[in-house]
């Protein structure tokens, strides 16, 4: 149901890989919300507060997103949201969403099949909001479920897979341009090169490269990228293959090598999550 997951689109999510959670139960979500809320209040007391001087009453909600899973074996996604209400005008003021984070597992059979019984596999974590809240929520989960969070970086190799995969996707309305951003190494001042390609041209190129619809091979991705690189070289005499691909943006989604993703189409949300789940699992293993 696209309506229920629409709030996940067009937001910048920072990616983490999470090791399996010990003794996590999706029947106790209300309890977890209460415990997390108490933990945040305690951290604030300790002076590890996020905002100084402003008295914020933070409300925690933990819920399940049953639509976000790949196979039946996957654990349904878990959403954590922090909202604030100014304590001054308590009852009448609106709640403002200040931080969201969600755990998910899409087609993570590789991991969930090999894990002992008391563990729940939710290897991908996405966070939007202040870094300090991410750190507080992360510590609570790590302490409570004995798991480990690590930033998930995306290598240039994986970014080029995403560029090829997402270019091939059919989009209804006029798609935005495909943009690749490269960082040039070994220069005294950082230099980024942005290469924008008309989405129809990119799709036409990919269609000539891909042999079997629904299947993508490394060779096809290499040929696709090489064509783009030689086109650029012909015009600008710069070898993009000697630079580092740091960001890929298409109409489907945009991904940055520091592990930041933005979903733009609900139709392909699960597809992108499947790829990210795979990356998270290989970082854990």
């Amino acid at each position, binding site marked *: 149901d696209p309506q229920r997951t629409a709030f996940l689109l067009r937001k910048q999510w920072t990616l983490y890989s999470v090791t399996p959670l010990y003794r996590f139960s999706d029947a106790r979500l209300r309890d977890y919300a209460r415990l997390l809320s108490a933990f945040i209040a305690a951290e604030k007391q300790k002076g590890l507060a996020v905002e100084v001087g402003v008295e914020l009453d933070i409300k925690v909600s933990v819920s399940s997103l049953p639509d976000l899973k790949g196979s039946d074996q996957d654990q349904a996604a878990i959403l954590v949201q922090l909202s604030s209400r100014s304590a001054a005008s308590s009852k009448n003021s609106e709640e403002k969403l200040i931080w969201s984070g969600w755990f998910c597992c899409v087609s993570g059979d590789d991991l969930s099949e090999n894990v002992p019984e008391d563990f729940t596999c939710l290897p991908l974590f996405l966070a939007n909001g202040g870094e300090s809240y991410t750190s507080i929520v992360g510590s609570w989960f790590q302490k409570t479920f004995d798991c480990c969070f690590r930033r998930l*970086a995306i*290598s240039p190799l994986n970014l080029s897979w995403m560029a090829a995969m997402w270019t091939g996707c059919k989009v209804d309305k006029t798609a935005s341009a495909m943009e690749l951003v490269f960082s040039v*190494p070994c220069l005294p001042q950082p230099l980024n090169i942005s290469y924008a390609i008309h989405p129809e041209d990119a799709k036409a190129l990919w269609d000539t490269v891909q042999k079997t619809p629904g299947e993508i091979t*490394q060779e096809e991705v290499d040929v696709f*990228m090489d064509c783009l*690189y030689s086109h650029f070289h012909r015009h600008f005499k710069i070898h993009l*293959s000697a630079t580092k*691909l740091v960001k890929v943006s298409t109409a489907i989604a945009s991904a940055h090598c520091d592990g930041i993703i933005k979903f733009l189409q609900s139709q392909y949300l699960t597809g992108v999550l499947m790829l990210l789940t795979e990356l998270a699992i290989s970082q854990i293993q």
Partner: protein
Amino acid sequence: LVGSDEGLQQKLAEAILREKKDFKISIHLATSLPLPSERDHLRPRIDLIAFMIDIKSKYSLKNVEASLAHVDASFFLGKVCFLVTGVGRVNYCSVEMNAIWKLGEVYCSPVLFCELELEGIRVATAQRLLRMLQICAGHIPGVSALSFGSLMRNSADD
């Protein structure tokens, strides 16, 4: 030494020259092959070709692949090796590992993974290359370049 990163090539060459040895060595640095034909008659015998690939740069791989086409087949009997750097940081990987393994297989030459940006590893690699060079130049009686090459390959498969 053939590779697109001239700075790293220079550093490795210096590390090799700094090593204690009892024979004369000359190192030719090139960004690609073929070497200019004008100096062919002046060039001393080449005993070992080390191709340098940086997995952070797809271009370095393409450069080496293009250069390999210009190497005489007799060199692939133990006188060629591949030095692969940049493997330490997986998140910067622009070259697929399979492509590297395939290169070693297709050209029957050893692939050495070495973080040449680190001085300690540069020194260790320089020492390894010198030993290989001694064998390839025929200075070690009883061991030929070919037998050493196949020895390295078999131990890598294990």
